[in-house]
């Protein structure tokens, strides 16, 4: 039996691209529990994004501005369409609405401190306005959500602007949820709910349905606030052309458009990854709607969903947005998912950078939690300072790019400054494929 058999080469074990490790583990988890997976943060898979666009700097045919010498303005005015008191921001990077409940009071305070230092606005979220947040935010946008948790006219009057939330990029058409662990006494009281229950936020507003009703609702809010405050309408990116047109028709001063990469406090994984479109695909149709109505730059467009740096800001503005909003990036600047807490992330079965069980309220960084001990780990002054630094960097980065394109204001950036690296991005952003004059669906090759 010791005769030598000819050696047959073995095929290496091969993993499926379709049934990858993460997919298989999710099937096992679902089979074991019978419940879908809920998590925080935005879509994690790769989708066409701003990275697929490049700026064409100035050269012989274009004239650049001198860095640090020649002015490149970054200010933006929001809400001058109808509001008596429009909002003036020093930078077009705003802080998106994130609920108190999903975030700790310290985190909300830090967001307010950072945004105020940078001369920009911050936004409440589901669950109402906290003192920490109002007190530390020089410009605060008050969200008016379907759940109306914590909604009251005194806070409405205390706000600098009001954002009627219809949807969110992470879950267009979906409501919210906050699991019992995070419904502490204070959160429960603000929401008029029993402590410790799993709280659902409805997906539709209770007292209006279609766009005609929305117009009446906006008029009511204007009447209550004596037409002083800008009224934003926030939508998740799905059918941006029609939704933006309807929001403008309903009387919005500002439209907030959130792409599928946009973060959430807690939503079903399947919803986050499979509903809605990337922000890259949504900006041009939104701008087109504004232009068709003669409202571009009159009704401002704020876009969000995966904005990370000054290049993303510059690209969003070049495609026609007036400002951007950041959620996830702001939390990272505060300290979310920081390797400093790696040991504790490991204990939670994850690793720094991948932690997304924000709904469980055990955030080692003290941000997405209501646990008083964990919360203390976030120093709102220091975290606010980090956010202010980060906002300053983003703004300067956008200026670097704008000057290189010869623009004296970020708002002078235009689609003609951009090219695309991929066919998808070219078709979605309607800018030519790099090195060609081809825009699929618009021009011939």
């Amino acid at each position: 039996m010791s005769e030598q058999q000819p050696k047959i080469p073995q095929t290496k074990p091969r993993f499926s691209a379709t049934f990858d490790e993460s997919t298989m583990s999710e099937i096992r988890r679902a089979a074991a529990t019978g419940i879908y997976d809920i998590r925080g943060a935005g879509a994690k898979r790769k989708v066409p994004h701003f990275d697929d666009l490049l700026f064409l700097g100035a050269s012989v045919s274009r004239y650049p501005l001198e860095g640090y010498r020649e002015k490149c303005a970054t200010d933006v005015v929001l809400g001058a369409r109808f509001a008596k008191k429009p909002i003036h921001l020093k930078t077009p990077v705003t802080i998106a609405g994130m609920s108190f409940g999903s975030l700790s009071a310290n985190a909300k305070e830090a967001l307010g401190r950072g945004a105020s230092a940078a001369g920009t606005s911050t936004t409440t979220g589901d669950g109402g306005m906290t003192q920490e947040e109002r007190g530390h935010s020089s410009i605060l946008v008050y969200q008016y959500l379907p759940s109306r948790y914590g909604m009251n006219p005194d806070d409405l009057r205390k706000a600098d602007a009001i954002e009627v939330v219809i949807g969110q990029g992470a879950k267009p058409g979906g409501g919210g949820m906050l699991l019992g662990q995070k419904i502490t006494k204070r959160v429960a009281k603000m929401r008029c709910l029993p402590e410790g229950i799993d709280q659902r936020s409805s997906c539709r507003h209770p007292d209006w349905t279609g766009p005609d009703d929305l117009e009446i609702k906006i008029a009511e809010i204007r009447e209550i606030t004596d037409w002083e405050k800008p009224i934003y309408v926030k939508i998740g990116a799905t059918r941006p052309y029609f939704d933006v047109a309807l929001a403008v028709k309903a009387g919005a001063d500002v439209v907030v458009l959130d792409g599928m990469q946009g973060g959430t406090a807690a939503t079903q994984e399947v919803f986050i990854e499979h509903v809605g479109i990337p922000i890259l695909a949504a900006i041009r149709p939104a701008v087109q709607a504004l232009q068709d109505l003669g409202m571009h730059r009159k009704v401002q467009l704020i876009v969000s969903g995966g904005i990370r740096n000054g290049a993303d800001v510059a690209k969003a503005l070049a495609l026609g947005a007036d400002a951007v909003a950041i959620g996830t990036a702001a939390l990272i600047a505060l300290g979310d998912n920081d390797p400093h807490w790696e040991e504790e992330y490991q204990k939670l079965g994850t690793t720094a950078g991948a932690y997304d069980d924000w709904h469980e309220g055990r955030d080692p960084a003290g941000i997405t939690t209501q646990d008083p001990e964990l919360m203390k780990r976030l120093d709102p002054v220091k975290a606010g300072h980090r956010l202010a630094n980060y906002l300053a960097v983003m703004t300067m980065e956008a200026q670097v790019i704008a000057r290189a394109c010869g623009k004296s204001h970020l708002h002078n950036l235009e689609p003609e400054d951009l090219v695309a690296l991929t066919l998808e991005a070219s078709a979605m952003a309607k800018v030519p494929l790099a090195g060609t004059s081809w825009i699929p669906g618009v021009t011939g090759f």
Partner: protein
Amino acid sequence: METLTFDLDAKPLREVNQFLHGDASSLNGKEIVIENPNGAHSIAVGLKSDIHVTIKGHAGYYAAGMNQIAKVTIEGSAGSGVAENMMSGMVHVKGFASNAAGATANGGLLVIDGDAGLRTAIALKGADVVVGGSVGSFSAFMAQAGNFVILGDAGEGLGDSIYEAKIFVRGKVKSLGADCEEKTMSPEDRQILADLLAKSGYADVSPDSFKQYGSARTLYHFHVDNAGAY
């Protein structure tokens, strides 16, 4: 009391509402009459002082929306969302009310003498709502807190996904929504009901002619075995 009359045929609603939002010290105690409302939307919204506003006719959407402290009487019918998100005070509709009457109201008392439409007291957050007639389907959907009294009948899906609000119905209930069940009325709840009936002009109606409904609390924590109810 000093009475002031505004004619909406002659004065824009914006000016009337602006006046009603004036300094409480100069407004408190005033009787205000609004003539020719003709179904205008957002009449007397955002009030916050101790005044009594009487609307002489029909009001459109969101009449007396977000009311605080004030008393508003509508001598006609009201459109969608009457007294929505009211915080305190009282709103009295002498006619019928359309959909979503008293939606998300946190406090105060809303009385509707006639029938009310779909989704009455939806997401109620602590106010008292008394309806003399019947209410449409999906009323008290996700109602969180407060008391909801219906002297007539209720449509389908009453109290669906209800939290801690209390519903009292004298007539028939077409169907109850998910997680809503009949309760035995405690002496305390009977007293709440008796007081509300007295405050709303129904002192002669016996609380014993009502059935009480509330949350079975089975959906308070998501559980896969309840998936069919969601």
